[in-house]
């Protein structure tokens, strides 16, 4: 078991302007650790999409980024409404975002598919009415 580092962030609900702050900070930290630009970009995109999702659908939540020498794990946890149909939510272009959110340029239905695309593994643990936890991994080796 190698050492790990954890970066913890609280993601504000209902605040689009601050969304993205956690992924920007993670990016700085990963640069300090000397990770390659390609890895940093994958982590920051996956994390940004996750942050935005928590703001749009779940009134915020927490983001934890675990860094080990073998992988980076991103755990996004919220107490939102849960995802009714995970398979459907994973389809590109599917979105339950409201019109007002779409008018802000979000809700294109690409969040979850992008998170999957930019990471090596992703699991969704969701309970209706209780919340959702998404765990993503980007392998370093």
């Amino acid at each position, binding site marked *: 078991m*190698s*050492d*790990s*580092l954890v970066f913890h962030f609280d993601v504000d609900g209902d605040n689009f302007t601050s969304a*993205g702050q956690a*992924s*920007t900070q993670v*990016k*700085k*930290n990963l*640069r*300090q*650790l*000397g*990770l390659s*630009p*390609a890895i*940093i*970009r994958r982590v*920051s*995109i996956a*994390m*940004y*999409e996750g942050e935005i999702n928590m703001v749009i659908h779940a009134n915020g939540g927490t983001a934890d980024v675990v*860094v080990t*020498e073998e992988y980076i794990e991103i755990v996004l946890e919220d107490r939102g409404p849960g995802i009714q149909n995970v398979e459907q939510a994973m389809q590109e272009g599917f979105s339950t975002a409201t019109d007002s959110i779409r008018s802000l*340029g979000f809700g294109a239905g690409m969040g979850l598919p*992008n998170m999957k695309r*930019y990471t090596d593994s992703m699991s969704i643990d969701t309970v209706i009415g209780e919340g959702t936890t998404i765990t993503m991994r980007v392998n370093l080796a």
Partner: protein
Amino acid sequence: MTSSIYEHSVQLDVSRCTGCTNCLRRCPTEAIRISDGHAKINDARCIDCGECIRTCDNKAKKAVIEKLDAMNRFRYKIALPAPSLYGQFDNLDDVDYVLDGLLKIGFDDVFEVSKAAELVSAYTRQYLKTEGVKLPIISSACPVIVRLIALRFPSLNDNVMHMLPPMEVAATLARQRAKEAHPELSDADIGVCFISPCPAKASYVKNGFADYKSQVDVVVSMSDVYFALISKMSRDEEVHSMTESGMVGIGWATSGGEATALFNDEYLAADGIENVINVLDQIENGNIPPVKFIELDACTGGCVGGVLTVQNPFIAKTRLQSLRRYLPVSKNFLSKEEQEYIPELYLFNELPTYKPITQLSQNMAESMRMMADIQKLRGMLPGIDCGACGAPSCRALAEDIVKGRARLEDCKILEK
């Protein structure tokens, strides 16, 4: 070239520095620390943006830049005025007065950078149509931005346009023109002098750019030239028409000018270093608006906001608007044959290589241990980012301590 030491154009006058924290907080790359009672600039991090020059009340930060007499060593002297120069003068209704003034202060020829800018715009329109270019294209005209991307946003390197800035194109074309008109001149006889709104252009000329060597010989400050010019410029006498640029070329002096010259509304233009960094962060997060072209200017307002200008950038912008009003859109269009390919003289091959300047250690396990220590220290520090320790924030002090460049006792708040 890339591995050699980078020669900066922003320096500190220690005797004037009081050790206040103004520049410390404004530096966008956290390149400044205060120790032994005065500021120190970390060369590896400095991007020559000039924010510290702008913010220093004691005039302790200055641009390292040549004076006009540096041109005396050349037989044939060519002035390259940046279009922002035209926005510095009160009641100027014709660019020709400025160009004529440049001849009066001793230049043999004037080649407007705005003329080259119109050609660069025309070729950029072609560049956008090139198959295989990575969209959105990020402009490479502002040297601060190119350096910022190389140091901090390496994943966006492929988006940077491989087109030389108008200053370089102007220098090459001006040399060609001089040689055609005066075949007796050798290369060493001809001196090309860029009249610059910012120190970053001086750094670009001194250091070159990856494998590219600048065609400009001397960079002088716009404010120096301004004072030399106002005594020689006369509005009473008739001057012959010299200007060779239109609205597009002069528009390059202000933010959005380069982008609107593409005659395509799919662009984003941002100015001011903080705003630019925000935009780059957003792009890197994948939050890219569907645009083809991104213009980023380090200075607020664009080049008119450079620290070597005389006039307030917004006033300069207003003046340029009225100067442009009666000009043709452009005086430099490309013929059908010229549109077929982009000549070599407009392009560069290599970008500066990415230097992971913030990396804690070469070894990842060691970096992780250091990061864990930084997190621990951040919990101990007061978190008010007062700057009294000489670092811009508590986080920066924590990093400095872990790197062995500061001590916990440097914190003035914990001491009490």
